[in-house]
Structures are given as structure tokens and as C-alpha cells.
């Protein structure tokens, strides 16, 4: 019987360095749920002061700090040493005693904190001994796991940044450790390199995506597509969980994790729109750039999966390799200041040389020579940039540990640093705000202790209730109000928001601005195709027009969450017609409509995107007063029979010139919201990277 102890650690506020603990035995869906109370504060440490670099007086101070840090962690982790080896009987919640082996298995922190705790240099990987010059190479090469033991042996002149006794592997001969101490080295059954957990937030969103946007901006500027990118960016439609950008990309000054996550969901589509219709010189670079971005975006989508098979892991690896293969296209935008200075110097030298050579006499001759010079200058500049620039930064390298990590420790999202930041807010920041800022630590602990006791009792009672234990009525009543665990929502489509100004088809047509003939024709067509003969709507337009109709503005569609069939996301499709939505523009959302068998429309698998025109109910008096819940939609058709494009891997859809004004469908055939990025007036790109579900369905 073993038991994982899973520590996480954040140093947000400079005033506190909290260390949290939770259990790996709790499934992550339960553990990371807000209000699960499964994350306990383990320690509150003082934050060591920061030092300016390369000051010799601070060297000693830094040494002392590292020693104290090690001492503190030794003290905290000490109880684990013996029990991890021998096990210890622990009472469990189901009334059994089990022999537990509490083992530290994960340490969730951002890179800089890993650096401090593992005692490595900031450009070193905590997991393996990759030399700094090869951080940007592809994932194909494997490096040996970092051997922390060698830095702790007493004979090695340790704890000095100058010790060069190790790292035979590293071609540069520099050990990547600074002070040579790993806080976690020497723990029983713990392998220090394995404690490092990949972190989507810092590695992908705030790391690579941020870098990538710099490259993309450079790339767009070079090819004069920056405006097109901004336009596409501003025209994004809404989607559940997606924050519609209100400003152009270049106007946004601050990018945080949340915005970067948004960006990952729409970047590929926006870029594909911005880079449409390249001229002949641009075809190849555009294709490479889109291929590179596509690989990275796909990689980040796969990394969010909560459940992997060897097949999905292979895809992940393949996307990463693809990204490494194609990233060269952005190399020229990775120019450092030093390289730029070199380029300038080179140009100056070249000009200087030329000035010394005698100028040819004739004007045409001079023009020709000047043209040659410029071409040469450009060539040499590109050469220099290509040899000097590189992708060797740490976040580039960390990606290659992602898929191995899944095999060893399970899905990646559960180790996200975000969940710690939640605990941070609850357990530390609230307490800090309420304290008198004087000896705050004690007050923080005290404040949270009270909260904890109350909430834990409520949780325990709630779990009793869910087991069906007989509890007094007032307890149940109280739990109903306070329970954080909400039951499953409704599993059926709901129409909401009735408009008062419509009572029959004539009103309905007036609001929609369509002729009643068209409306009747479509209704009859619907009933003929979809309803059994004896339940069809009346064929006579006069009777049809007399049927009562209600017009509604919202349809709630429960869509099963990806890889979690028990949870349903509610998609709220709005259809306000010409009315304004929340005092802003009117909203007539894009939805997926089931339009045929799975084998139709290529990657769309029998579904077509459509624009909602109206949501309505019609009561059929002639047929036992049944109510039909229907929607008018304007269906788009797939371009190129729904095949994925070679360049950007998205499906293009269009509104055909000869398309019918609208068709009537049952709301049961509406499958959920679609995210379409407008390309031109009648063409759209299906953004399949908007969520995992769509990503998994359209490929």
C-alpha cells in the first residue's frame, strides 16, 4: 500500500512563501475542485531577499541562504524519511487501517522556483542534463536524467559555482548547477528529477506562446499582414468560455495567463485568415509559418487531454517534432541585441570596404553595382542572423518532457500551478487582508484555521447526505443551500426568453422580415421530411397561419464535456434577431446542425455550421395540440467537400449564392455552438481549436 504526497508551492506575494500539500490518492477532479479543501497549507516560509548578480559580498550571503533553505526543508520533510521506507499504519476514512508509504511525488512550482529549490542554473532543465546550447533542438535526443547526487558528495569541492568535476556529457564543460544543492536530494524513495512537473501555465501560455507572438508579429510586419491579423482578431465571434477580444491585438498592452489561453484557442484560425491569398513569393513562407503554429497549437491542445492512450501520446510527440522541424521560419525574429549589433558592425565594415574601392564612372554601371551591393549586404545579414540566433531557451526544452510525464504521472492539467493559486487566494491572501499586517503570519494561519473547521464539517456532512445516511431535516435543508457540490444540470434542451410581440405566423414573419409564403413553404417542407404522416403540420397555408407561434431568443444546449461524460457544459445559443443583446450588437450565433450521416461532409462528419435565424414554438391544434420546438437556420456548405486544408488544417465553409434563405429544423438536431472565423463576406473558417471536444471531432 503506498500513498503519494504531492506538494505544491508558490511564491506570489513577496511577503509569504506558502507550501501546500495534498494527496495523490484523491483523483484530480476531486482534489482540484474549488472548495474541496484537499489542499492543506504545510508551511509558511520567509522569503529570502533577492540579490543583485555578481556581487562578491552577496556570494557568501547566498550560500548561507541556500543552506538555511535546505535546513528548513529537511526539517519539514523529515517525517517522511522513515515512513516512506517502512510504511506506517494510517486510519482511513472508510474505517480501515492501511499501511501507507507517504512519498513525495510531485513539486509544483514555476521554473524559477524549481531553480532555487533544485539548486540549478536558470537555463538548466531540472529533469535532465541537457546542455544550454541544445535546449532548442528537437525532442529526438534523450539526455541522461540529472544526477543530483554527484553535487552533494563532500569530496567534490561542492557548493561552489566553480566546481567543474562533473558533467562529462556537457560539451561546454560547465555544470549547470550553481550552488550544488538540491533540497530534495536524499529523500527516501524520491527521485529528485521526477519531482519536476510540466506546467501549462508558465511553460506554454506564458512561455512559448508569448515568444511565439513576438515572432508572429515580426513575421506579419515583414509580409505586411499585421492589419489583416488585427482585423481578423477583432471579428472573432463569441463562444462559451471564450473571452471575445475587444481590442486589436497590437492595442493590448498586458498579456496574462487567461488571455494567452484564449489566444491559443483562436490563434491558428486568425493567422490563417490573416495569411490568406499569398502572392507567389509568400506561398512558401506562409505555409511554413502556418505549419509551425499549427503544430504548436495542436501540441498544446493534446497536452490538455485528461486521459491519454499510447496513440494520443504518439500524436503529441509527432506534433512537437513537427514544430521543431518547421520553427526555422521564425529564426530571423529571434535576433538578440548582440546579434543586431554584430549585423550593424558588419554592414559598416562592408560599406567601408566599398568606399575604398574605386567607383565606376557611368551612371548605369553605378546603379548596377549598388544593386549588387545591396543584395550582398542582405545575404550576409541573413547569414549572420541565421548562424547567431538560436532557439536555445529553457521553455523550448521543457516541452519534450511532456509525453514521458504523462506515462509516468498521468495527465498534465492536474499538475497545473493554477490550482495552487486558488489555494493561495483562500488560505493566504484573505487572511493577509484581514490581518493588521504586523506579525501577519500568525493571524493568517488563525483566520484560515477557523474557516477550515467549519467548511470541513459541512463537507463531511454533505458526503454523509450523498451516501443516503439519515440526517435531521434541518441539516439537509442547510446543506442544500451551502453545498459546493452541485448536482448534474438538466440534460435536455431548453428554450428561453419569450418575446411578447409574436403570436402567430404573420407577426413572426414581420419580425423576421420574410414573406409568409416562404415561411409556410419551409414549414411544410420540414413537416413533410421529418414528421410521420399522421402528425404532420396542416398543409393548408390558411390553417398554418392561424396556429399560435412563440418566438424565443435563447436555446440552452447541454453538451457533454470532453472525456467526462458525467459533466455537461451548457451552450447558450442566442438568437436576438434585430434586437440588441445586452445593449451591444445583436447576436445570432453559429450552431452545429446535424445534416446527414457521419460519412458526409468530410472532417465535419455529417454536421454543418449554420446561423440561427429564429427560435420558435408552434402549437399544432389539428394534431392533439402538440407543440413543435423548431429553429430557422441558414446552413453553410463545406468547401472542398469538408477536407482539411494542407496549409492550416482547418475546414472552410461558405454561404452559397443560391442558398435558401433559411431552413426549418427541429431544435433536437442543433448540437452545440460553432466557432467560425470570418474570412471574407461569404466564407468562414471552422475554428476547430476552440475547445477539446471540437478539436477531437474535426480532424
Amino acid at each position, binding site marked *: 500500500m*503506498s500513498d503519494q504526497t*504531492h506538494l505544491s508551492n508558490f511564491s506570489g506575494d513577496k511577503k509569504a512563501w506558502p507550501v501546500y*500539500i*495534498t494527496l495523490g490518492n*484523491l*483523483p484530480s477532479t476531486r482534489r482540484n475542485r474549488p472548495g474541496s479543501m484537499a489542499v*492543506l497549507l504545510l508551511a*509558511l516560509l520567509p522569503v529570502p531577499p533577492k540579490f543583485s548578480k555578481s556581487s562578491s559580498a552577496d556570494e557568501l*550571503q547566498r550560500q548561507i*541562504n541556500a543552506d538555511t533553505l535546505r535546513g528548513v526543508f529537511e*526539517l519539514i*520533510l523529515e*517525517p*517522511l524519511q522513515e515512513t516512506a521506507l517502512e510504511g506506517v*499504519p*494510517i486510519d*482511513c476514512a*472508510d474505517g*480501515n*487501517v*492501511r*499501511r501507507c508509504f*507517504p512519498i513525495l511525488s510531485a513539486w509544483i512550482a514555476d521554473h524559477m522556483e524549481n531553480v532555487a529549490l533544485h539548486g540549478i542554473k536558470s537555463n538548466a532543465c531540472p529533469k535532465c542534463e541537457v546542455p544550454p546550447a541544445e535546449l532548442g533542438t528537437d525532442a529526438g535526443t534523450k539526455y541522461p536524467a540529472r544526477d543530483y547526487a554527484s553535487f552533494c558528495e563532500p569530496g567534490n569541492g561542492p557548493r561552489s559555482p566553480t566546481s567543474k568535476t562533473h558533467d562529462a556529457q556537457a560539451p561546454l564543460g560547465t555544470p549547470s548547477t550553481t550552488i550544488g544543492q538540491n533540497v530534495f536530494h536524499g529523500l527516501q524513495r524520491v527521485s529528485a528529477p521526477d519531482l519536476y512537473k510540466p506546467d501549462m501555465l508558465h511553460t506554454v501560455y506564458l512561455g512559448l506562446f508569448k515568444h511565439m507572438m513576438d515572432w508572429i508579429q515580426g513575421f506579419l510586419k515583414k509580409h505586411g499582414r499585421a492589419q489583416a491579423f488585427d482585423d481578423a482578431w477583432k471579428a472573432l465571434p463569441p463562444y462559451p468560455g471564450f473571452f471575445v477580444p475587444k481590442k486589436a491585438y497590437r492595442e493590448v498592452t498586458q498579456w496574462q495567463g487567461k488571455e494567452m489561453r484564449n489566444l491559443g484557442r483562436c490563434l491558428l484560425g486568425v493567422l490563417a485568415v490573416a495569411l490568406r491569398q499569398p502572392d507567389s513569393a509568400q506561398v512558401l513562407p506562409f505555409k511554413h509559418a502556418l505549419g509551425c503554429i499549427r503544430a504548436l497549437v495542436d501540441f498544446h491542445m493534446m497536452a490538455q487531454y485528461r*486521459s*491519454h*492512450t*499510447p496513440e494520443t501520446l504518439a500524436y503529441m510527440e509527432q506534433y512537437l517534432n513537427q514544430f521543431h522541424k518547421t520553427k526555422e521560419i521564425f529564426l530571423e525574429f529571434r535576433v538578440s541585441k548582440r546579434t543586431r549589433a554584430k549585423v550593424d558592425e558588419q554592414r559598416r565594415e562592408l560599406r567601408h570596404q566599398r568606399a575604398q574601392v574605386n567607383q565606376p564612372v557611368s551612371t548605369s554601371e553605378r546603379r548596377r553595382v549598388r544593386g549588387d551591393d545591396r543584395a550582398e549586404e542582405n545575404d550576409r545579414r541573413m547569414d549572420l542572423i541565421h548562424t547567431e540566433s538560436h532557439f536555445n531557451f529553457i521553455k523550448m526544452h521543457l516541452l519534450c518532457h511532456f509525453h514521458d510525464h504523462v*506515462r509516468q504521472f*498521468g*495527465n498534465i492539467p492536474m499538475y497545473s500551478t493554477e490550482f495552487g493559486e486558488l489555494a493561495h487566494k483562500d488560505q493566504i491572501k484573505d487572511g493577509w487582508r484581514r490581518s493588521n499586517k504586523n506579525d501577519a*503570519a500568525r493571524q493568517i494561519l488563525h483566520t484560515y484555521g477557523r474557516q477550515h473547521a*467549519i467548511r*470541513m*464539517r*459541512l463537507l*463531511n456532512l454533505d*458526503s*454523509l447526505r450523498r451516501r443516503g445516511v*439519515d*440526517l435531521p431535516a*434541518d*441539516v439537509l435543508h*442547510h446543506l442544500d443551500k451551502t453545498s459546493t457540490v452541485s448536482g448534474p444540470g*438538466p*440534460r*435536455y434542451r431548453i428554450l428561453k*426568453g*419569450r418575446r411578447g410581440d409574436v403570436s402567430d405566423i404573420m407577426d413572426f414573419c414581420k419580425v423576421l422580415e420574410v414573406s409568409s409564403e416562404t415561411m409556410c413553404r419551409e414549414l411544410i417542407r420540414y413537416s413533410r421530411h*421529418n*414528421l410521420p404522416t399522421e402528425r404532420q403540420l396542416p398543409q393548408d397555408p390558411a390553417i398554418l397561419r392561424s396556429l399560435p407561434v412563440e418566438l424565443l431568443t435563447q436555446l440552452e444546449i447541454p453538451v457533454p464535456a470532453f472525456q467526462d*461524460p458525467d459533466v455537461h457544459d451548457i451552450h447558450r445559443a442566442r438568437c436576438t434577431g434585430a434586437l440588441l443583446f445586452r445593449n451591444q450588437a445583436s447576436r445570432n450565433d453559429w450552431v452545429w446542425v446535424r445534416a446527414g*450521416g*457521419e460519412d458526409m461532409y468530410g472532417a465535419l*462528419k455529417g454536421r454543418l455550421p449554420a446561423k440561427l435565424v429564429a427560435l420558435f414554438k408552434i*402549437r399544432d391544434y389539428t394534431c392533439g*395540440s*402538440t*407543440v413543435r420546438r423548431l429553429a430557422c437556420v441558414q446552413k453553410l456548405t463545406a468547401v472542398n467537400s469538408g477536407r482539411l486544408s494542407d496549409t492550416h488544417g482547418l475546414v472552410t465553409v461558405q454561404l452559397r449564392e443560391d442558398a435558401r434563405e433559411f431552413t426549418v429544423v427541429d431544435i*433536437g*438536431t442543433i448540437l452545440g455552438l460553432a466557432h467560425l472565423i470570418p474570412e471574407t463576406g461569404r466564407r468562414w473558417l471552422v475554428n476547430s481549436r476552440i475547445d477539446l471536444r471540437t478539436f477531437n471531432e474535426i480532424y
Partner: protein
Amino acid sequence: MPTKCLFCRRKYTRAGAYEKHLRTAHAKLDIVLASTVRYASPANYITDTETSLLHHPLVSGHPDSDYEFDLDPTEYERDDDVVQESDTEETNDAAPSPADKPMDYAGAGEAIGDVNGFEQEYSDLCADPWAPFTSAHGFKLASWFIQSKVPKSRINEYFSNGLGDTASVGYGSMHTLENHLRSLDPYSPYLQWFEGQVDDGSRCLPFFYRNILDCVRYLLRQIAYRDDLVYAPRREYDSEGQRLYSEMHTADWWWDVQVQCPTFYKNPD
């Protein structure tokens, strides 16, 4: 219903996956491909809704209310549900292949004894859910005070101004309330704080920590997590026999560590 591959024992619910499988695993059978794929596509959706409309008498709406609900949950059931059902069926009765079944690590998570007084404690909690508070009102009031972060001075004011009935609530000031709270959590001794000092040469700073082992004990002991706790690593497989990596206990590390640990152990008493 999942369609069984005509040439091997795998099953597929989605046409795309089946087609891909045919293309990769049975590449030689090009000729039959066109005809088989058609079977895999599920029944036309439109006819599906049609029949469901037929079978369920439709609920008439409430034309006077602003919001209207479709009360009959089956009325607009999506075909996704149907697919899920068939998925579970598949793992339960069909597909006798042993690879589909999750494999638990034998002997891990074995109970070695019973917790003393567990039943007693359990029934105490059921009988008197608000202990040590004397009444439900007392607990709810305390819960409201604490969770809405009412300051201490305000709580004292509340009682000193006679707004609350001290007798029925059971406490009359922040001080007495805190005494109640302290005994509210029977395992609070596990969460005791220790204080340490750090001397970095220039300053002396206090720091606080808990006993890490007691934290583990505390979490494992909570009834709230009873149904969720996992005690043993396991290997899970999907319907196609592929290994699934999802939660921590389904991945390799836990299994590997479990192998190193002494597996089975009976307490002599």
C-alpha cells in the same frame, strides 16, 4: 451500437475511427472498404428524432411564463447519449478480451485492521451533526459569521447589543465561539502549527510548519473523501485494448514504486 470490425475483434462507435483502423490495420482489404464503412455510420439522425417525437407525448408549454422548460428529459436526447450507453455495454458484457479490464495491483491498499471507534464516531456525527454546538441555529450563525468574514469586534458587538439570543446559540462572544470552533474538528490536533526560526546571518525570521505526516493522516481520515480515495495503482485500458493514462494512479510511477514497497503485511494484532 458499436460496429465490430469485420476482420478483427475491435469495436468502433465512430465511423471515422473505424475507417482509419481499416485503412491502417487491414490495408490489404481495400476492396471491401467502401462497403463496410457504410455500415458503421449510425442511423440517420433525423429519423431518430422523428421516432422519439412519436413515442413521447409532448408536454404542452406554459404560454404565460417567461421561461419555458421542456419537462420531458427524453424528448430531445442527443445521439451522443446513445453512443455512451453502447460504450458501457461494450465493456460490460461484450468483448471478453482480458485486455479491456482494468488491472489492479494485487495486495495494494489491503486493509490491515479496523479503526478503533470508527462506527461510534460515525453514528455520533449522524446523531448530533452540529456538535459541539448546542443547536443548529448556533452552528449556522457561527458558519455565517466565519464564512462571510465578520470581524471579531463586530461579532462581540452583535452579542453585546443583544441582537442574538446567547442562551439558544450557546456562545456569547468571539472568545466562546472560538472555543466551540476549536473542538469542532475532531482531528485538529493533526493540523497543529509548529514554529521555527531562520537565522540568515543578518536577521532572525520566524517560520511556521505542520507535521507533514499528520497532514497526510488528516486528509486520509476525512469522511468527505471516503468515496473518492484511491488506494492502489491500476492499469486501465480502453475498449480497443489501449492503455489509458489519466489520473495519477493509472500511470506508471505509482505502480513502479508499489513494486518496490513491501506488498502485503498483516498486523500481528
